[in-house]
């Protein structure tokens, strides 16, 4: 919902936008790692968030946000899931 209480995108579309932002962000992060293999895991984590935010801004027309700070709205608690490693 935007400030005029009009539907901008549905919950399902928001889910797809978030999924696409994470997918594209991880693709960019792995491409970056292949070109710069000495980058540390911390830096790669930050780069992933930064790239996901870049894609989120484009896909959600500046409405969505990707970060490590959790939700601004405390009424909606953030579900924390452990990261699953890929080999």
């Amino acid at each position, binding site marked *: 919902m935007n400030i005029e209480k009009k539907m901008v995108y549905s919950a399902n579309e928001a889910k797809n936008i978030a999924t*696409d932002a994470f*997918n594209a962000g*991880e693709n*960019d992060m792995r491409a970056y*790692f292949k*070109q710069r*293999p000495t980058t540390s895991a911390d830096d790669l984590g930050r780069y992933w968030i930064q790239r996901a935010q870049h894609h989120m801004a484009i896909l959600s027309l500046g409405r969505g946000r990707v970060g490590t700070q959790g939700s601004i709205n405390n009424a909606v608690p953030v579900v924390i899931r452990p990261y699953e490693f*890929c*080999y």
Partner: protein
Amino acid sequence: MSSVIRITTLLAMSSLVNDALAQIRDPLSLHGIVIFPVTDSIPQEVILIPCTLDNLKDGTMGYLVMFSTMRWTQHDLLHAISDLKKEEVNIRGIITPYVSFFPPGDVSSELVEGNIVFDKSYPVSPDVPRDEGIYELELTINDTTYLIKYTNPPKEFGYPKMFIADP
């Protein structure tokens, strides 16, 4: 009874595929030979050669496709690849200037035919460093060796989203 279960499973699977496909705005489905490294988990990368086994020949161009990131858009990805019957092949000469999950030298790998679906509506971001080089590898299937070229997929393909193996 078993046929009922089978039909239900098929319906459930096709609805999963349809749901995932509905998410892709402008799908580009590339059918071809997909070469996996031997692993129990989701590999980081696979090589997709867009042709069938029958018309595979020397100099065919393949793509090194980022595979593990598709687990965001295809939740049953590990199941989709672990239940497959894969043909064992040998590849040689994977020489890339970067870290890859296909190590150089003789590597036993696995081969499956299927589709990899990209989303053309959102091209790959130009501000990320990418390798545009073209490399070669020897692919040995049933004592026949092919010289295959491979590179990164063009940016216009967009990000890979789904893998559908041939039944």
